[in-house]
């Protein structure tokens, strides 16, 4: 399975690609790395965290808000980091402006309820702790080896 990383803003900007084997081994070319390197999914999570500057932030008091994608910076402030990691069917996008926000497509039901269905490319900005970001990142990584057992070997072996 292939994982893709795009860092628009952060300690290391650019695009990354990671090829993951069923046994959890991976080959990663990430922003900041001069060449592709062999690694494991577990170490990869740490590489990505370092690449995007994931770390402790003050508690986020704000509530979830729906905004046009083009106005994220107006609503959340200038980004120290902005990145997304995705695979075939899962993605995590983070906008870090002191407060960290998880960015996701806005729920159509919420859009209808709030009468903002005419908004251009609406996204939901949800404040999140670094722990929640780590959980979301781990969930995407976990999904990339969903067919494997606990020890990284195929569950059917």
């Amino acid at each position: 399975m292939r994982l893709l990383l795009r860092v628009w803003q952060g300690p290391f900007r650019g695009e990354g690609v990671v090829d993951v084997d069923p046994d959890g081994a991976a080959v990663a070319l990430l922003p900041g790395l001069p060449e592709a390197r062999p690694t494991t999914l577990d170490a990869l999570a740490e590489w990505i965290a370092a690449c995007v500057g994931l770390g402790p932030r003050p508690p986020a008091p704000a509530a979830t808000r729906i905004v046009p994608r083009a106005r994220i910076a107006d609503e959340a402030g200038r980004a120290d980091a902005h990145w997304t990691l995705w695979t075939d069917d899962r993605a995590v996008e983070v906008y870090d402006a002191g407060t960290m926000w998880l960015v996701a497509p806005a729920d159509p039901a919420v859009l209808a309820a709030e009468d903002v269905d005419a908004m251009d490319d609406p996204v939901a900005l949800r404040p999140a702790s670094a722990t929640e970001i780590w959980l979301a990142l781990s969930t995407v990584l976990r999904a990339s080896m969903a067919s494997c057992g606990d020890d990284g070997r195929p569950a059917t072996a």
Partner: protein
Amino acid sequence: MVPDPAGRFPVRLPPGWAEGEAVDGWRTAYPPSGRPRPTILHRTVSTCDTDVAILLDGLCAELPARYPGLLVLDRSAGRLLTAHSGLTTAYRLVAGPGIVHIAAAVMPTHRYAELGPLLERTLGRLRVPA
């Protein structure tokens, strides 16, 4: 360092987990299977300074110095989350009179999505014995 009192493990363990041998002064508990097995640890430290925020400051400085490459991912009141060498570790500190209880949950990072919330809740039940 003071010895932990004998008796029940200081946090209520998830179903199927059981206490194992103590390691370097830490009480340990494990699930019945998994490789590498996630672990919950507990120890007490006697100290004059039981300000948990100051103790967390110390841990945030000490851990990366002791383990190069260790990432401090998150911290909040009484808790800390780190990653190093493919392992994610959640810490919980609770202070009592002259003593600090430290509980930690160590798990393979690729199992954090599965185990993290459960083990964080488990550590959140750490209380100073009456």
